[in-house]
């Protein structure tokens, strides 16, 4: 079973703070991490390999610092990693990103299963996975929370939907996107960490791919961000003082006065 897992390096958004004076993100000191959903995708890839044999290759598109995240994947035990990095890829929206990743997957060749995280926590679009599947002309299933069965010909998964789940079978090759419930992510192993420190991460540029240059990067992106703003905040807060009882009383009074209901 040849498995490709697509990951994204993201800022740990739980750490992101806004500078209220300049209305910008304070990024200094914010760690870069593997998108949490993608770590579950890696774990699932490793589990399938442990069961059926084969290879797990992790790919990512982004600037050179993404090498750190790919090394982290190596420390978890994946076989190979590839970074797609090129100025020509910059500015890609989900369409151009999924096209580029799909072309890389074609270049790897003979891939049976592609696994992505449900969505990235910085963009939250959830669009790249299905987009890759479309460009690869393979079936896909999103929001997978359980792998029921997999063999050389097909895969059966549970997909979370509103108010329950669907059980879906697909012919391979196929693509799935996974939610956190699908598994518990392993820790890296010491041998994996040692290997990750030695490995040279191969970098593929646009020239290494059989790619249509009008479909990548900013030029290949139909959508464009035209403005960015910071959500407004309510600055009129009434903070009550006193001990617990006094505060509770003041709250009830205030609500009463306002005739809230």
């Amino acid at each position, binding site marked *: 079973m040849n498995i490709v897992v697509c990951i994204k390096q993201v800022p740990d958004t739980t750490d992101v703070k806004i500078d209220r004076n300049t209305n910008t993100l304070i990024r200094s000191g914010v760690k870069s991490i593997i998108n949490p959903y993608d770590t579950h995708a890696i774990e699932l890839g490793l589990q399938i390999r442990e069961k059926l044999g084969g290879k797990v290759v992790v790919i990512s598109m982004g600037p050179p610092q993404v090498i750190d995240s790919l090394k982290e994947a190596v420390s978890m035990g994946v076989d190979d990693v590839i970074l797609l990095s090129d100025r020509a890829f910059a500015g890609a929206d989900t369409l151009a990103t999924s096209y580029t990743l799909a072309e890389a997957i074609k270049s790897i060749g003979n891939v049976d299963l592609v696994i992505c995280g449900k969505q990235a926590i910085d963009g939250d679009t959830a669009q790249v996975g299905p987009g890759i599947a479309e460009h690869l002309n393979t079936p896909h299933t999103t929001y997978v929370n359980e792998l029921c069965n997999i063999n050389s010909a097909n895969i059966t998964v549970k997909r979370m939907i509103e108010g329950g789940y669907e059980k879906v079978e697909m012919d391979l090759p196929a693509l799935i996107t996974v939610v956190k419930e699908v598994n518990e992510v*392993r*820790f*890296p*192993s*010491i*041998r*994996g*960490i*040692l290997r990750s*420190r030695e490995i040279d991460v191969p970098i593929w540029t646009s020239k290494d791919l059989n790619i249509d240059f009008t479909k990548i990067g900013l030029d290949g992106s139909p959508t464009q961000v035209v403005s960015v703003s910071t959500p407004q905040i309510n600055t009129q807060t009434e903070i009550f003082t006193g001990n617990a009882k006094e505060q509770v009383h003041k709250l009830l009074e205030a609500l009463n006065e306002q005739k809230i209901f």
Partner: protein
Amino acid sequence: MDYFLTEKQQIIRDLCHRISQEKIKPVVQEYDESGEFPWEIMDILAKSDIFRVFIPEKYDGLGGGIFEMSLATEELSRVCSGIALGFAATGLGSMPILLFGNESQKQKYMTKVADGTIAAFALTEAEAGSDASNMKTTAEKDGDYYVLNGVKQWITNGGVADIYTVIAMTDKNKGSRGATAFIVEKGTPGFSFGVKENKMGIRASTTMELIFENCRIHKDQVLARPGMGYIVALKTLDRTRPGVGAQAVGIAQGAIDVCLKYSREREQFGQPISNFQAIRHMLADMSMQTEAARALVYAAARMIDSGAKDISKESAMCKCFAGDVAMKVTTDAVQIFGGYGYMKDYPVEKMMRDAKITQIYEGTNQIQRDVIASNLWKK
């Protein structure tokens, strides 16, 4: 203090820290109460290669030694010394094989331990505690086999381990020179387990009786030579005592960790108790003592790993000192927490219960002092 750890040693420490924080911390209380063996944690440690740290590369290990074993034990003990013991006692249980096993024994067993198979060391008996030579378990030769009879008591990892090194008397007349060490696998006919002990501390660790009733062990399972059993035991314990010391240092450090946090949060007389000199001085002493214990443990471990032969005194010193420090520091930690410290809702009472064992097992601290003293006049 900077102990100039190598890259690999830093990886071991950091990974054990991460596993402790993310996986062990949430289940500490649960295992302390239930007394179950923490298989899920052992599985994580195994998959992360922690069991490999003290095993030579030849047997699928990472080529480290006592120092690496101590680092891992300390870091895990910082959060739960009971859970850490599942690992540390495997180190003890497999050390006789590593030290005295022949090539085929090492190939067979050490590779399994590297993959996370639990091991145990069985020396203590009801009437043979500090006086190990008063052993009653016998191994009578019968052709190619030895027939084991007797009961081993308070065996850490008893019942959960698959591999046991057992010391038994093959020739009672020869006294301590009549003991022999055997590798016994779980499931061998005639080998069963008695009661599981209900302990004061390290409750996540399993302690059990091993019962041998006409248990036939092939002579290939003998470690070193017949009659070497006592030497095997003593040499093993000389090497693993820093592990107990590391466990003690981990417990003490864990107590300091929670005290530092609590003393900033807890307010009395309108200010955090960390502002009070009484508390500050206690914490200063606790940190000083713990650092001293750590330095001694690391120095002894490094000395052992260097191949030094005469290590009994240093090994005894670090275990004894660290054990006493752990007891003192955790007692003080309970004091800093005050009434809350006495409650099971807070972690320090468990640490105090756990600390006590480090003054008792692998040789009581009184025995350690005897060992140290008897070495003082040697030259």
